[in-house]
């Protein structure tokens, strides 16, 4: 069984590099893009198992991109983790940003900087432990 694919969308290259390193160390295959304009195209080509999404980006907010993901049949059910510096994960209310009830909140919100263990646990919950996991998994 091939590795699960995870797409990271964040305009901060260092954040993307960090998340990639964490995911790769846990046996997932990671892809990163800092350009939200071409991100949808990448989602369509790659069919990732999970998407990690930032909110504050220059050309489009992560919230708006997320709404588009959910309106597209091909990405409608792809799990999404929003990782952002502007959210307080406990108080964050998705409905203040997206009024449209037909768009469900994303599977998970996470505040920057992330706790690596919590992050990986969440990824596993959402797409399962990767069959090819052999590195970095200390459990």
């Amino acid at each position, binding site marked *: 069984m091939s590795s699960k694919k995870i797409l990271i969308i964040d305009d901060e*290259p*260092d954040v993307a590099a*960090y998340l990639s390193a964490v995911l790769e160390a846990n046996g997932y295959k990671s892809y990163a893009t800092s350009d939200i304009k071409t991100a949808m195209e990448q989602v369509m080509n790659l069919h990732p198992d999970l998407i990690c999404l930032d909110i504050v980006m220059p050309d489009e907010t992560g919230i708006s991109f997320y709404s588009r993901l959910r309106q597209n049949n091909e990405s409608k059910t792809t799990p999404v983790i929003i990782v952002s510096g502007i959210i307080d994960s406990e108080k964050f209310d998705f409905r203040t940003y997206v009024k449209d009830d037909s768009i469900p909140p994303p599977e998970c919100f996470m505040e920057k900087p992330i706790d690596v263990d919590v992050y990986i646990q969440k990824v596993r919950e959402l797409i399962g432990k990767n069959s090819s996991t052999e590195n970095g998994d200390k459990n």
Partner: protein
Amino acid sequence: MVKIHQPRTEIKIKPDVKTYSAKTENIIFREMFQQIPYNIAVIDRDYNIVEANSNFKDYFGSWQNKKCYTVYKKINEPCKDCPTKEVFKKGDPVVADAVGIDQYGRKTHYVAHVLPIKIKRDGEVEYAMEMTRTVTETDRWQQEYQILFDRVPCYITVIGEDYRIVRANEAFRENFGDVLGHHCYKVYKRRNTKCRNCPAEKTFKDGKVHQSGQQGIGKKGQKIHYAVSTSALMRGSDSVAHVIEISNDITAMKKLEEKVIDAERLGAVGQTVAGLAHSIKNILMGLEGGKYIVSLGLNKNDKEKINQGWEMLERNFDKTTSLVKDFLSFSKGRLPELKMLNPGSLALEIVDLYKAIAAQSGIELKSEIDKNVKAAPLDPAGIHTCLTNLVSNAIDACIMGKQKGTEVLITVSEIRDKLIFEVKDNGSGIDYEIKKKIFTTFFTTKGGGGTGLGLLTTRKIVQEHGGKILISSKKGKGAKFTMEFPRKRLMALYKECKV
């Protein structure tokens, strides 16, 4: 009573129809007397009305056995300036205008044609025929026009070819003072010469309507913003004799606009704190990431990973430093340290500093320095920071625009006692949404490349110099940032600094 002109008195009808007789003629004249759209009364030398048509009766009421002045004016003695008296005396017809009272007691303005009637060819004038036509309607229009002119909530002036005001409505006089005969530019703007881009001048030239937004000074020294439209009053068909300027006062709107901006700015304080937290969290994430990757590399003895992690650490420590530096210079509240400097050489320093960096990305950094610009009191470090920020922004915009042949131009000039620095690029431009936020938050479009404090700091320094900063840009078409420093304010600050 005013004599207007002498009307013709001879009316000839040619009785050349067979059936036409003296009797028919009589009937025709009687019909005409009754139906003609005039009020007609015949008066004898003692001012008794001896005959009148039905129009007259309908208008002034019953007349039998009454004196003309009782009927026309409801008074008990002859009028002082009676035109009919003149007709009896001289035997010539007279036209006059007068104010009387109709049968319902309403004031009425009329024009009277008074004709002498002689029964004997060489005898004296025995009767006077008064034909009156009311002009109350015209009069009312005039009044309406006057009220409109004065009360319409606009400023209206009529300007002659010599740019002197020949008429001004009440609203204008109230706000600009009594100004008839003065030059419009003196009155509107307290200038001694014609304004640049004067819309009235254009209308004088082409006779067409022109519009423009202007700022003037009222009689109490208050700023008045107005939107003016100029129309031509033609002399004949081809030359403009006067220009009417109709202006809408938009001062209140401007003030409201300023309040909205203030409110937005206050809202932005909250956003600024959130923005600062966001920047810090991203930096922390980079530091954590660097640490994680270094330890990953150490565990696996992977030198490449260690290097990657170490670079991330370095980069994010640098970011912390520049964030703190920007934040400090932003929050510093101080008077600028002014020194007499040549503004042009400040600009040239920046060109030297950035020329090579710009060239690396294929961008030409140019400068245009007006040699007539004299030394001015400026804070060298502050202006250096401003120009650095603007130029590096312009270079980034050119890189983001991804076009060929991009350039950044710094100009130093002086217009009307204002020292002006301008940084212009033909890069990616700024759209409206971003323009709104540009000075208010830790706003950056540069992803990891900016702290979002550069322009905020720039504006602060410019304001500390008593100046202002203006942006003009369209998405995709480059941007122009202008810093304006009025000399007067710079000098005032300079004196303050020295004390």
